[in-house]
C-alpha cells in the first residue's frame, strides 16, 4: 500500500507541474480531477485482503465478490491491474441522466447535479472501466450534453452579467470543474475591461 500512496503523490505532483508551467494562478483541470478522485465508489474485488490503514482512513476488508467502498483513485488502480470490477455510481444511469438533461434544458438556472464531480468521474470511469458500465456510450453522450448545456448557460450568464454591468450575480449548483473552466477567463477579462474603462476616463480615475 505504501507504494500506492507514493505513486498517487507522485502523480499529483506531476499534474501540478503540468499546470504550473502555463499558469501559476489557475487551478487546472488535472487538479480538479485529482480532487474528484477522492470520491467514493463501490467495487467488487476479486482478491482478498484485510483492512488497510491509510492516511485518509481505513479501507476494506476486501472480500472477493463482495462490494466494498473505496476512493476512485484506488478503484481505478485496482481496475487497471484487473483486480476488481467497478459498480457505477447510482446516478450514472441513462434514465437518471436523461431526466437531468431534460431538466437542464427546460430551466434557465442550473439544476442540482447528483455529484459535484460528475464530469470528472464520468471521464475517469468511462476511460478506464467502460466495460463495467452498462450503456457507457450513451452515458458519455448524456453527460457531455449536460455539460454543454450548463457551459452554454454559464457563458450566457457571464455575457449578460458583463453587458448589463452588474456588480454581482448569483449562480447556484455550479460544480468545481465548471467554475474552474470559466473562472480564469472571466476574471482576466473583467480585469482588462476594468483597465480599459479606467483608461477611457483617465481624468476621473486620477481624481481618486
Amino acid at each position: 500500500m505504501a507504494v500506492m500512496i507514493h505513486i498517487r503523490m507522485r502523480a499529483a505532483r506531476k499534474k501540478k507541474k503540468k499546470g504550473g508551467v502555463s499558469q501559476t494562478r489557475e487551478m487546472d483541470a488535472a487538479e480538479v480531477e485529482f480532487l474528484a478522485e477522492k470520491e467514493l465508489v463501490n467495487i467488487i474485488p476479486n482478491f482478498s485482503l484485510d483492512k488497510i490503514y491509510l492516511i485518509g482512513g481505513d479501507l476494506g476488508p476486501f472480500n472477493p465478490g463482495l462490494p466494498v467502498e473505496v476512493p476512485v483513485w484506488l478503484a481505478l488502480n485496482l481496475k487497471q491491474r484487473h483486480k476488481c470490477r467497478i459498480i457505477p455510481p447510482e446516478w450514472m444511469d441513462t434514465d437518471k441522466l436523461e431526466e437531468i438533461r431534460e431538466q437542464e434544458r427546460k430551466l434557465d438556472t442550473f439544476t442540482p447535479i447528483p455529484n459535484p464531480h460528475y464530469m470528472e468521474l464520468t471521464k475517469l470511469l468511462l476511460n478506464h472501466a467502460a466495460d463495467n458500465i452498462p450503456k457507457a456510450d450513451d452515458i458519455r453522450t448524456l453527460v457531455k450534453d449536460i455539460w454543454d448545456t450548463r457551459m452554454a448557460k454559464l457563458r450566457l450568464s457571464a455575457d449578460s452579467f458583463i453587458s448589463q454591468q452588474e456588480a454581482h450575480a448569483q449562480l447556484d449548483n455550479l460544480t468545481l470543474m465548471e467554475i474552474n473552466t470559466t473562472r480564469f477567463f472571466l476574471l482576466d477579462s473583467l480585469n482588462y475591461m476594468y483597465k480599459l474603462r479606467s483608461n477611457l476616463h483617465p481624468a476621473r480615475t486620477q481624481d481618486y
Partner: protein
Amino acid sequence: MPCERKPMRYGHSEGLTDVCFDDEGKSIVTCGSDGDVRIWESLDDDDPKSISVGEKAFSVALKNGKLITAVSNNTVQIHTFPEGDPDGILTRFTTNANHVTFNTSGSKVAVGSSDFLVKIVEVMDSSQQKTLRGHEAPVLSVAFDPSDEFLASSSCDGSVAVWSVESQTQVAQWKVLQKSSDVSAAKSLCRLAWLPRSGRVLAIPVDATVQLYDRNTWTHISTLSDDLSTQVVNVVVWSPCGKFLAAGTVGGNLLIWDVVAKLCVERQKHEKGFTVCGMAWHPSGGRIAYTDTEGCLGLLDGVSSASAPTSSSTTQSTKATAAKETNDYDDLFDDDDDRIMDEGMSDSHSPVKKALVEDDDDDDLMPATGRARNRASFLDDDNSQDAASVKLDKLPDEDGSSAILPPVIPAVSRPVYEGPMPTPPQRAFQPGSTPVHLMHRFMTWNSIGIVRGYNDDQDNAIDVEFHDTAIHHAMHLTNTFGHTMTDLSQEAVLLACEGTDELASKIQCLHFSCWDTQKEWMVDLPKGEDARALCLGQGWAAVATSTLMVRLFSIGGVQREMFSLPGAVVCMAGHGEQLLIVYHRGTGFDGDQSLGVQLIQLGRKRKQVIHGEPLPLSQKSYLAWMGFTAEATPCCIDSVGVVRILNRTLGNTWTPVCNTRESCKSKSDHYWVVGVRENPQQLRCIPCKGSRFPPTLPRPAVAVLPFKLPYCQTTTEKGQMEEQYWRSVLFHNHYDFLSSSGYETDSEVQSQAQKEQQELLMKMFALSCKLEREFRCVELAELMTHNVVTLAIRYASRSRRMALAQKLNEIALEKANQLHEEEEQEEEEPAYQSVAQNSLFNHVRRESRGSSQMNGCEDEDVEEEYTQEEERDAEEASETKKPCLNPFKKEAQSPERPSPKPVNREGRANPFKVSSAGKSSGSPAGQSRTTNVLDSMTMSSRKPVALSGTSKQSKAPVLKPLAPKAKSKTQATLLQMTATKASSKKQESQSGTETVKQTPAATPPVSAENTENRKPKTGFQLWLDENRKSILADNPDFEEMDVIKEGMGRFRTLTAEQRLEWSEKAKSESDLKKRKREHGGEEDEQMERDESGAKKKKALDSSAKLSAFAFNKK
C-alpha cells in the same frame, strides 16, 4: 353466476394489448406496446416468460405451437411456442397490421392491416396468400368462420364485411359502425366473433350493444344489450360451449350474456375503469382473461361453473356423454340437450380447473407445479389420441369440444376426496442456481465463484468465473453434453447432465488444482441412472442419482463409497469433510414438503451426524437454498425466506436466524441467497425486484443482510440484549466444532466473542438488578463465567442486595470448583509449553500496559487472576495449535498469517492505523482481556491513568510534581484533605455507574498522589493508594482514618517479599519524580502562581497539557 374478479397485474407498458390462451389453456399469452409477448403460467406468475418480438406488438394469436404477432415494423411474425424462438416472417404490409387470428384448425392466419387490406396466409407456406380488397379504411379486426368458408372483417370505414375465403369476394356488408380515420381514432376496436363449432352466428359489437347475425341469410337476428351499461363495446368473445358471450367495453365493463335467454348474467367492472382491449376465454370455459389499454392483465374466474347449481355431477356426466352423441349432428345453438351438455362439461371439467387454481398459489419456481401440469397434459394427450381415432368421420368443427370432453369421464367417476391434498414433491435442484429452463442462467453461485450457462441459438456454453482470481482464471467451456448441474470448489468444477435415449448420464470434473497434466475426467453412470444432484467437498465429489443412490468419488476420479438414500434427493452440499443431503422422506400434505436431512462426516472420523431427521421448513414452503456457512455450519433457507442454521450444541436443532422477507420492500421482491458467513455475521444475497432469482445481465450486485433471531420483544432493551446474546452464542458455536475436528481457530476472535457475551450478560444482570428481579439475576449469573460472577457479586453488594450477593457467592463457589476440576484434568498434559506461553503473555501484557503506567505496580490478586487465566489460555492455544490448517478461512492467504504473535504485530504496526485502545494490547492476553475491561472500575482506580486520561482531574497529578516549593506545602495539604474526600466519594458513585456502562473510562486518580509529591513516599503508602479502593468497596462507611487502619492490617498480612517489592517501587518512583522536576524547572514560576491561586483550575490545565507533552516527548 357469481364469478371472481382477480386483482389486475401489471403486464406491459401502456398502450394497446392483446391476450389469448394456449391450446390447453395452461398459460396466458399477452402482448403489448412494449413489444414483448409474455407467457404467464398463471395470473400470480412472478416471472412470466418474455419474448421480445419488436418495438410494439398490436395483436397476438396462438395455435399449434405457433405464436403469430402483428408488430410495428409492418410485419407479421411467427415465433415458436413456448420456446419463443423466431420462426420467420409470415407476411408484410405497407403499414401496421392491426389484428391477427387463426382459423380453427390453425392452418391459416388472417391479418387485417391499416393499409385497408385483409390477408389470408397459410402458416406452413407463407407464399400461399390471399388478399381481400374492398375496405376503404384501416381494418380493425378479422375473424375466421369455424368452417373456414367465410371471413368477417370490420374496418374504420364503418363497415363490417363477410368475405368468401375461396372466391375472395364480399358476401355481405353492413354499414353499422361509425366512421373514423384511423385505428387510434376509432371508437371501438370492433373485434368480431363467430359462434364456435357451427359458426351459425356472427357477433358484432355495435356501440353499447352486440348484434347477432345469422350465417345463412346474413340477417340480423337479435341484439344483446345491458341497460346498466352504456359504454361502447370493444371486444366480444364466445364461450367455448357457445352458450355465453362475453364483451369488454371502453369504460372497463365486463359483461357476460346467456345468449339463448338474452340475459346479462354477469357484470363486472374493471378495477380502475380502463378500456378493455383484449379478451380470451379459457378453452375449458371456466375463466376469462382480459387486458386493458394500460397494459394490465386481469382474470375472471369461475365464470360458468355456477351456471348449473342444481344438477349433481354424476347425472350430468351421463347426460353429457349421451348428449355428445346427439349433438355431433344437431345444431348446437338451439338445441336444449347441448345446454345440459355444456353445463356438464364446464362443471365436470372443474377438477382440471381446480388444479390450475392450485397452481396459482404455487410459484413457478416450484418444480412441483410442473408435475401437476405434466399430469394434466398427459391426460390431454391421451384424450386427443382417443378423440382422433373416433373423430375421423366427424365434422372438423368438433375439434374444440372433443379435446375438452373426454377427461370428463375419468375425472367424475373418481370418488370425491375432501381430505388434505398431498403436495407434489419438489424437484431436485442445485443450491445457488436459477431455473433450468432459462436460456441464460446461473448454474452455481457460491462463495468460490459463479458458473453461468448459456443455451441459445448460437451457443451452448458454460462460463466459470472465480470471485478470487487467485484461485484460477475464468474458464469458458462449450457445453457439448448439455450439462445442467454444476458445483464449484477451490479445487475443481463438477458438471453433470441427465441421460438421453442414446447417451448415458455423464459426470465431468475439471480438476484444475491438480498438479499433473490430466486436469479432466469423466464418468458415465449406468444406463437408466440419471444424476440429480451433485456437490464437491475437499478432496471428494458426490453425486446423487435417480436410483436413490449417492456415489462418492475422489477428486481425482477414483470411485469411492456409495450408499442408498431413503428417498428422492432434493439437494446436496459439501464442505470440507462434511456431506449434507436433503431428500424426500415422505409425502407432504397441504403445501408442505416432507424433507429429511442427513449429515455425514467423511474423512478420518467417518460417521453420520444427522440420521435423516426431518428438516424444518416454514408452512407451505419448499427448500430454496441449502449449504454450509463459510465456517462449516449447515444452513438452509426456505421459499418463504426464513434462514435456519444448525445448532450443534442443542442436539443438532435448527434455529431460524433471519427472515429475508422482512427486508423486502414489496411483496414480489425476493432475496436470492448466495452465501452465509458467521464471522462476520453476513447473509450474502442478491436483491431481486419482482422475481425470485436474478437475471444474468446486467450483472447483479451482492448485498449483505444482517441476522436477527426472532426473539420476543426485541424493541425493549431486555429483548434486544437477549437476542444479541443468543445470536452471539449461536454464531460462535462453530469454534467448538472446528477445534474439535482438529482445525485451527482464531482464538483472538473467539475470546473477543466471549468477552462480548459476558458483557451482554453483565448488562442484562445490571438491568435485572435495576428492575428488582433478583431471581432473574441469579439465572443470568449461572450463564456467566467465574470471573464475571465475582464482578456481579461486587455489583450486588454495592447496590446493597445482600441476599443476591450470597446466592451469587454460592454460584461462584460452584463455578470455581468446576474450574478447578477441569484444571486438574488438564494438568496431565505437558506443562512446559504452557509455561513458555505464559511468560510470553506476561511479557506482552506488561509491555502493553507499562506504557500507560508510571508506577507499573499491580494488585497481587489481579496478578493471580491473570496468571490463572493465562494458563488456561495457553492450554487452549496449545491445543488449537495443531498443525492442521483451517481450510475454511475465507482468506486464502490466511494460513500464512501469524495467528497469535502479538509482539511481531506490535512491531510492524501501521503508523496510519488509528489505534483503538484494545486492538494491539488486548489481542495477546486472550481471555484476560475480558477481565481487563470488565474489571476496569477496579483497575483504573488502582493505576493512575496518566497520559491517556481525558478528564481534567487526571492531568493534575502529572503536573503536581513540577511544583516542589515548600511554600505551597501547607496549602497543598489543605487542598488535599478536602479533595480526598470529595474524590473518594466521587469514585464510589462513578465506579457504580461504570459497571453498568462497562466502559473503561478513566476514573479520577486517587488524590493521595498529591501528598506524595512532598513527602517521601513509603512502600505502604504506595500500596495503600492502590488498595484504598478495594477497602472502601468492602467497607463503604469507613472514614479516611479507618481506611488507613484497615490498610495497615492488610499490608501486614502480605509476605515480606511483597512488602519489599512495594518499598522498591516507592524508591524508584521518587527517582522518577526527581527527573521530572529537573525537566519541568522552567515552568516552575508559572506553577507557583497557579498553585497560590489554587482555584484557577483552567490555567493550570493548559499548562498541564504542556508539561505532559514535554514529558511524553522525552
